[in-house]
């Protein structure tokens, strides 16, 4: 391994590209969601700011920047300011282990299109997603507001419960690929995507992912009607924008992880001849999964909190365990 400048510069460039890509993706995901949600509700979404509404995210960003930054006087100031940061940073770094494409040649140098290829990549993802729960419960606490506290507690309990089912749903692809490294899991799907072997696993993954990201129908913690926006009720301006960003980036992240684990990641026709098609295929799959997330939001009513928890513990986790057992038994029997 040569320790030349490129050795240090390459991960730096990849990180910058990843973070910028996620931020841009977040901005246009908000527009995508608003337009698709509108079409599902027989109306047109925002189409006035720029052609087709393309400058709408910029208008929203400018608006949020200009808003008054209010910190409640009795709030714990340090924690209040830190909480959005604790929520958003894990969302940005969780995609560090995902392979975005096969190895490409840039300027005569063979570059693997992944920030890092950990041999325990799946474990890394699971642990990083757990950190953002701290940010939410701290936001609820630091706001010095009963309803924000309740929202924060509810949200963290929900996320912790559904993380179990989420992690267990990932054991299926791990067993099938015989590795926790995401690169190897993608390579193992060359013949057939894991969604065919793990139909129940995909369903569990998707439901648990929706609950993990606090998305409808599991968005009780940020219910405007029940909890007056829950844990981020006291936040305004840029700090609120960070929470907003964290939620949408986590959405993108779980869709990328789902595409990688179940739908073949960057694999697709002719990807070996033209390696740059890899990220493009991944993008298509992620957009399809995001569409399904928005579609579910447009269709289903919010689930009441106690039913949400009962479902997570009494239905989804046993089902995920069963999925693991069945997958393991079938693999041992068939070989």
């Amino acid at each position: 391994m040569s320790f030349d400048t490129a050795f240090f510069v390459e991960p730096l460039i990849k990180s910058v590209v990843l973070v910028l890509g996620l931020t841009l993706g977040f901005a246009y995901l908000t527009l995508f969601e608003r337009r698709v949600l509108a079409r599902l509700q027989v109306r047109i979404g925002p189409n006035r700011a720029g052609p087709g509404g393309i400058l709408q995210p910029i208008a929203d960003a400018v608006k949020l920047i200009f808003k008054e930054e209010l910190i409640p006087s009795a709030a714990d100031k340090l924690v209040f300011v830190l909480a959005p940061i604790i929520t958003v940073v894990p969302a940005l770094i969780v995609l560090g282990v995902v392979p975005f494409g096969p190895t490409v040649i840039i300027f005569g140098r063979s570059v693997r299109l992944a920030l890092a290829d950990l041999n325990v990549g799946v474990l890394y993802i699971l642990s990083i997603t757990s950190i953002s729960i701290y940010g939410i419960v701290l936001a609820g606490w630091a706001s010095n507001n009963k309803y924000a506290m309740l929202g924060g507690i509810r949200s963290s309990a929900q996320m912790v419960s559904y993380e179990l089912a989420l992690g267990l749903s990932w054991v299926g692809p791990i067993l099938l690929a015989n590795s926790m490294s995401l690169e190897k899991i993608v390579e193992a799907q060359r013949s057939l995507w894991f969604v065919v072997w793990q139909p129940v696993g995909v369903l569990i993954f998707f439901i648990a992912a929706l609950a993990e990201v606090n998305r409808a129908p599991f968005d009780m913690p940020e219910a405007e009607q029940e909890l007056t926006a829950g844990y981020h009720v006291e936040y305004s301006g840029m700090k609120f924008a960070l929470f907003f960003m964290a939620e949408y980036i986590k959405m993108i992240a779980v869709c990328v992880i789902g595409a990688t684990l179940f739908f073949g990641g960057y694999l697709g026709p002719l990807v070996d001849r033209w390696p740059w098609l890899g990220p493009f295929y991944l993008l298509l799959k992620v957009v399809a999964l995001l569409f399904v997330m928005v579609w579910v939001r447009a269709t289903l009513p919010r689930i009441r909190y106690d039913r949400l928890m009962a479902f997570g513990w009494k239905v989804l986790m046993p089902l995920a365990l069963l999925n693991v057992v069945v997958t393991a038994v079938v693999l041992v029997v068939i070989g």
Partner: protein
Amino acid sequence: MAVRGIVEGLATTLGMMFERPVTIAYPEVKRPVRPRFRGRHDLKRYDNGLEKCIGCALCAAACPADAIFVEAAENTDIVRFSPGERYARTYEINYLRCIFCGYCEDACPTEAIVLESQYELSYTDRRTAILGREQLLVPVPPGGQPTPQRVAPHSFDRAIPDMKDPE
């Protein structure tokens, strides 16, 4: 089961994507107003060009928002604005006060003040929000003379004409 309900719901929502959106793309497309829509006022004229308004100020009395200001003056046969003795020398409606209720239209004995279909009203300062006589009067109909008119004596003694019952 619940799963079937969810799947049917998802199918319904997806089907909505293929329907034409119900949004009216204002300002490129404007929906026509309904009959009896209450928009900006017009002061009407008769077919011969004389104004219908006789300056009685019943509309100002009826207005719940005190938006109308009327000053009456005498008609003579040499300088005639409306049939009868009086006409409205000053007629102002303050559109920052007007609530578009239509009580003035109901109160008017000659059907002079009528709420029409103009709803795109915006002003940049208070002075321009007060519309006067000249801005509210309708143009002279074809075949009519502009006011003030010079008429034959005693041809328009009646202020309030015989009117048909409303439909």
